[in-house]
């Protein structure tokens, strides 16, 4: 299967099933806190859509910096998708 057609579920393979030199984007998620790997390159907008997250309820942060929806994320990026909605 070509890399480009990987769905998000398929791109979240356990590390052991991948060859050593594969390097995916590290995405930190909250509620619950977890780290997933996503195949890049991918626009912020697409990342949120693939993760089934609403843009209005999240910020995407790459190495401490906010990025806009059209920004291209790459395999070497460390990304945090931070929920901004609180219920109190």
């Amino acid at each position, binding site marked *: 299967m070509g890399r480009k057609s990987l769905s998000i579920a398929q791109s979240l393979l356990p590390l052991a099933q991948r060859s050593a030199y594969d390097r995916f984007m590290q995405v930190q998620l*909250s*509620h619950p806190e977890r780290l997933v790997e996503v195949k890049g390159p991918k626009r912020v907008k697409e990342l949120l859509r693939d993760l089934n997250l*609403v*843009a*209005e*309820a*999240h*910020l995407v*942060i790459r190495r401490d*910096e*906010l*990025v*806009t*929806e*059209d*920004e291209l994320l790459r395999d070497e990026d460390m990304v945090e998708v*931070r929920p*901004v*909605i*609180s*219920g*109190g």
Partner: protein
Amino acid sequence: MNCKKCHTKAVIGLPRHNAAFCKVCFNEFVHDQVARAIKAERMFGPQDRILVAVSGGKDSLALWDVLLKLGYKADALYVDLGISGYSATSREKAVRFADTVGAAHKATLLTHTVQEAEGAGIRELADLIHRPTCSACGTIKRYQFNRAAVEHHYDVMATGHNLDDEAARLLGNVLHWQEEYLDKQSPSLPASVEGFAKKVKPLYRLSEREIAAYAVLNRIDYIVEECPMAKGSKMLLYKEVLNRLETESPGAKQSFYWGFLDKQAKAQPASASMTEKDQASLHPCSTCGQPTTAEICSYCKMMARASAAKSS
């Protein structure tokens, strides 16, 4: 995406304003929205002393930050609820902000510790009197903030409620046609009687996402985790629904809440009658002296029940 104002690289897009901003222009936008809110709702002036209710979360710390940067005299109060795994961290964030940004502007942080003053943490207290934690928490926070504001002679009390909070609350009230609560949804509630501080919400023109972005961009270290009690709350559900709408049609939240405020302003008598109603029915609590509609205020009743339950 480029900044709408200065055309450098943008850090955030704002679909509801059909705009995108760089950090500098976004900060200007946020300060401007808060300044507009303060002016439009006649919240306070440059000489007034403001008490900000801070929780260690993004909204209240961002509010304190903006008010100080706009040159207002703003101190803050943190209420430690004694919730294990949450209160210690949130308190640390509030204290750290006070020691850095607050101190630089000569502002002080007051604290109230529920465990010390009420003899137990909020969860224990709620258990003792068989009430949901959030409702007991609401009573204590309202009471302690008002008490601190009145005792320390602040002119006005400011909370970090944002556009999402107010739109979600409005949705909840409208879904259940709780018309009696609609009067209290104004971003500026007058000090209706002696003993009740004026309450304002200077962030009502900013969305939760915009405020979080402001906090991240300005390196405001806030508690990202939620209070564990908020899990599964109705407010979260309403916000989720509204944010789905917002994503599909940007501006939905503001037209919902601001539209309501416009209608309310045109129906003017509402706020006047509320003040009159309040004045007619409020008198000092026979135990603590704070204003209440009953013989004993809801806080004192709650504490009496809690100590009775503890000793039985």
